[in-house]
């Protein structure tokens, strides 16, 4: 029972952290717990959520992807160009662009056996460069349909802006991919026991590649969202997002050693990070102090996870895990 209990518990860290943070900020700044604020935040979390969900696939396959921010910027920019050429749906070009970047990462890591950090660092630099190339050294690409994009990004329909609903659907899709589709299951298998996947007849590098492809596609989607919210393609955006998305995915219970992940928990992890950011914004502390607080919060969520683990081991002392003696 222990591993299962621990498995479930680790996915509860992020929701618990959200409640805790919401409570604290609710006391600190009264407006925080209002319905309006809840709705406004519900519109904001999706860029980070999509990046974190993508990151989750890479982490579940025992890797990670530090190029997601740059990929989002490039694909959002190209999406904006496509949207200007053929209308707003052209924004969706961001997804195949992200997928293509993910394919390169996946090929390098899965097939050419690069370490994930090297491969994605290389593509991070190259993709940043490409984004500048296509955009005349970083000039934003204003959307012609900016007004409609803004309406889709900010005007709530039944609680969420339409693009929020779309992103939620994409997260739901990620859940389906992870839980009910072969590719997701194979990613978990690879993360769980990389040596065994070949022995049961799978092709490990293809699985690894698909994990980074998913990661890239979700980064592309995040880029499209970014463009829609800004009403412009932002070629130099995205610095720092790779670390934020890794933090959100890990706070969301994704095991860095691979094999275990839960999309809803990752969504909760991303929400948590956003709650903290917004809460600090609204409480009006100095931006520098806010940054310190964000760091402390990331550490605290790690400590919470550790505390939970200890607690569980305490409780289950009489049934220690048999394979490993902790």
């Amino acid at each position: 029972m222990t591993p299962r209990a621990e498995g479930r518990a680790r996915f509860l860290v992020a929701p618990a952290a959200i409640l805790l943070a919401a409570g604290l900020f609710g006391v600190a700044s009264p407006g925080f717990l209002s319905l309006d604020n809840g709705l406004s935040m519900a519109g904001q979390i999706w860029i980070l959520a999509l990046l974190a969900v993508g990151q989750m696939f890479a982490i579940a396959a025992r890797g990670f992807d530090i190029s997601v921010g740059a990929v989002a910027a490039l694909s959002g920019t190209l999406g904006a160009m496509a949207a200007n050429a053929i209308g707003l749906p052209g924004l969706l070009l961001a997804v195949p662009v992200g997928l293509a970047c993910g394919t390169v990462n996946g090929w390098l890591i899965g097939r050419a056996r690069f370490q994930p950090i090297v491969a994605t660092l290389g593509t991070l630099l190259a993709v940043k460069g490409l984004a500048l190339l296509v955009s005349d050294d970083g000039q934003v690409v204003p959307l012609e349909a900016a007004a409609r994009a803004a309406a889709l990004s900010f005007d709530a329909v039944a609680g969420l802006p339409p693009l929020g609903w779309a992103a939620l659907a994409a997260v739901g899709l990620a859940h389906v991919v992870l839980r009910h589709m072969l590719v997701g299951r194979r990613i978990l298998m690879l993360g769980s026991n990389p040596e065994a996947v070949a022995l049961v007849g799978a092709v490990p590098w293809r699985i690894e590649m698909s994990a980074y492809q998913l990661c890239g596609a979700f980064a592309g989607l995040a880029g499209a969202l970014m463009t829609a919210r800004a009403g412009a393609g932002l070629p130099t955006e995205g610095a720092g997002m790779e670390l934020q998305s890794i933090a959100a995915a890990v706070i969301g219970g994704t095991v860095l050693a691979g094999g275990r992940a839960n999309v809803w928990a990752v969504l909760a992890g991303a929400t948590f990070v956003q709650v903290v950011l917004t809460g600090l914004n609204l409480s009006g502390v100095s931006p520098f102090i806010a940054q310190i607080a964000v760091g402390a919060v990331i550490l605290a969520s790690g400590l919470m996870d550790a505390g939970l683990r200890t607690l569980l081991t305490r409780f289950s002392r009489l049934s220690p895990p048999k394979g490993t003696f902790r």
Partner: protein
Amino acid sequence: MSASDDAPSDDTRDDLALVATGIAKVYGATCALRSARLALRRGRVHALLGENGAGKSTLVKILVGAVTPDAGHIALAGAPVAFGSVTQAIRAGIVPIYQHLSLFPELSIHENLSAFALAAGGGLWTGRRLVDPARARGWLKEVGLDVDLAAPLGSLSLGERQLVEVARALSLDCRVLVLDEPTAALNADEADRLFAVVRRLCASGTAALFISHRFDEIEALADEVTVLRDGRTVIDAAPIGRHSREELTHAMLGAGVEAAPARLSERAAPVLVGRGLAAGRHGRGSLDVIVHAGEIVGLAGLIGSGALSLAATLGGAQAGPGELSVGDASFMPGDRRRAAALGIAYVPADRHAEGLFGALSARRNASVSGLGRLARLGWLRARAEAQMVDPLLRRLKLHPALPEAEAATFSGGNQQKLLIARGLAVPGLKAMVLLEPTRGVDVAARGVIHDAIREAAASGVAVLVATSDLDELMVLAHRYLVVREGTLAAELPRSAPRAALLAALSGSAAA
């Protein structure tokens, strides 16, 4: 059964299920297989023997399409085949049970049972690839497992996992069943269940390839035997009765069979003492264990009984209730660092996960517990290290004798020797706690390891061996402690007959 034929090399017989000839495989600088031949017959269990590193697992991987051979031919029911992948082999009816479990700890048992279907082929959805739960439960029942299908595999013990791997093989339509050391992690009872399954399959015409280092199992199950030595077939499909154990051993490596344990003259002072300990999930913190100087205590228990857990506690590796002491010094269960400092060596059961430093050299693997003694002002004296460890490695006949080669590149038996050497190199060694010290280790290496254990005991070290291998227990221990459902069910003298031990283990009749 064996007298029927004396022409094993006749490849044209129509009951031949699978014939592999001239198989060769080179890995970098190592030649795993030179020219191996193997012929399996329908309805027969075929044993494959060979010392650690002889190439058995490599041959298996080639048969099941996981590895492409450099040379050689494989014919399935007379038709030549060349598998590009495991999936193709499985489609052709060759079903593998691997030595190093090909299971996924984080996934559920149900998903693990469906792993072949999940891994192979195109398609989008997992749904229909998950095997029917009712049938899955049937297979689990057949191998004697009563577990929740939705539980993660990681919640099972090593032995239970092995049975899951066997159950998974049952899910496939099987013409040739390939078992690579399936019993290494099983106790006698579970092994019997496995054998029943294999026999039933064979009765319906399946050919089975069975790899094991245990002669009694081979004699109990196999109809024919092939012996590999250094990548070559040296005995080809001989009926099982034709060669004696000595002859087979000789064919494998040219060594003799090991001696029985020396008698313990008189009982010496207690060295390793545990009071109020718990054993596994049933434990209530009421067990006392005492191991005396020079004594080898065998701790026996079925899988899940708590024997390994109790042993781990005694070695300081697992936290729990109770108190432990060596000599005058006491320590808490789980304080492995203090235990090591007090001179208690510990050899874990799962050598890959808990024992080996795969990336480090053999010498560094062996010397890790004695580093304190090798350091002068934080400076490690390389020569002293070699002087401390190399004689041990030589005595344990490490093969190949390359103390500076990475541990990951040694075969299982030799990796195990590294862990034993590490134990022997503990400064001020007073007690050794060994869990499954020869799991998956060939006869020769096993003899070497047993000799080393006996020698240590003879020099006054208190030894506790926890093992699910009754033979091992009987050649090693001076006294048996039997753990059943978390209690010390019986203490038996060295002279106790095998039947009494078995009875105590399973709790069937009065011991």
